[in-house]
């Protein structure tokens, strides 16, 4: 395949996935996997799982991160630029349009009522997300993550501690735990 076709397919695939997928990263990533692993056969299953793991280890939207990784894997830096554009152009266009419609319609009584109803729906969605994420932490059955979660909750809601500090301290705890873990594994390896 020549370079132009490669870029075109990368752009078209990410553009259409981003354009027509509702529900964010956890919905779009499996679809990306299907497209690039099963349909195009460009990336094998194991490597795709690694790319997804890297995408989740970086900050930012998971859909954006995964698309950058696919582009990078296929065509280096320029490939990554093509796929990131493909992923952000649809929401950029749609939201720009919506921002103007919103300004024009926000004061309309019916629109206002619809949005007021949706507001309760959004609150339910966020609470549901938090329940799911908290359960995932609790189910690991490890004491440190649960303590970090409770401490961050108290610090964040009770004392309005800056987010930067909370992230920094928890990252430090994660680093220490990982180093202890690696050292334990290393010691075990030596004693054998």
């Amino acid at each position, binding site marked *: 395949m020549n370079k132009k076709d490669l870029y075109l397919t990368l752009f078209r695939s990410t553009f259409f996935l*981003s354009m*027509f*997928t509702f*529900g*964010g990263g956890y919905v779009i990533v499996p679809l990306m996997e299907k497209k690039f692993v099963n349909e195009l056969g460009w990336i094998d299953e194991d490597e795709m799982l690694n790319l997804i793991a*890297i*995408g989740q*280890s*970086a*900050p*930012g*939207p*998971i*859909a954006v*991160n995964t698309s950058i990784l696919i582009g*990078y894997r296929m065509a280096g*830096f320029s490939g*990554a*630029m093509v796929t*990131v554009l493909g992923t952000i152009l649809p*929401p*950029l266009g749609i*939201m720009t349009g*919506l*921002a103007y419609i*919103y300004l024009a319609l926000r004061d309309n*009584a*019916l629109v206002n*009522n619809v*949005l*007021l*109803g*949706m*507001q*309760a*729906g*959004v*609150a*339910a*969605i*966020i*609470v549901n997300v*938090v*329940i799911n*994420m908290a359960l995932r*932490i609790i189910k690991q059955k490890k004491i440190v993550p649960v303590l970090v*979660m409770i401490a961050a*909750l108290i610090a*964040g*809601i009770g004392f309005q501690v800056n*987010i*930067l500090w909370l*992230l920094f301290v*928890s990252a*430090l705890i*994660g680093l220490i*735990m*990982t*180093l202890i873990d*690696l050292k334990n594994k290393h010691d075990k390896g030596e004693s054998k």
Partner: protein
Amino acid sequence: MIYLELFLSFFQIGILSFGGGYASLPLIEQELITVQGWITNQQFIDILTLSEMTPGPIAINAATFSGNQIAGIMGGIIATIGVTLPSVIIVQLLAYFYFKYQNLSIVQGVIQGVRPAVVALIASAGVTIFMTAMFGHSDWPIVLSEINWVSVFFFAAGLFLMRKFKASPIQIILVTGVAGGIVYSLIK
């Protein structure tokens, strides 16, 4: 210079949102409402609502929308670039190291450590959103007589549908939107 401020604010949001789109909510709340005062609580929830209704990552949607509200079309584009740029840089660095050493266990360990704190942060943004939905604002003191019982019912029904029947966010938005349009138009 508003464009530079927008860029820096969203760059910071992008670089700190570990754990996907919802992780950007507390950052957007802190930066845009508390620190900069660019948008109100109500606008923040409207942005969330529109983001759930439209395709694409929440952080991108929120950046485009609030950039537009603050400084027009250029503002939307600049905010979107700002929130995406950290991903472009960091993801490729991680990929480079991964392909070179086939090992990211330290990076992944740090992320594991951050995850519980991120849950707490999203919960704390959730409190603001919940309070605004139930009482119309999230400032103390909250008076129980201000509670919007229709909203309480919509919230409970939405949560029930998601937990019991695995309803998707877009379905919840559509149902509560239609129900809100009918009920509030009748009782107001």
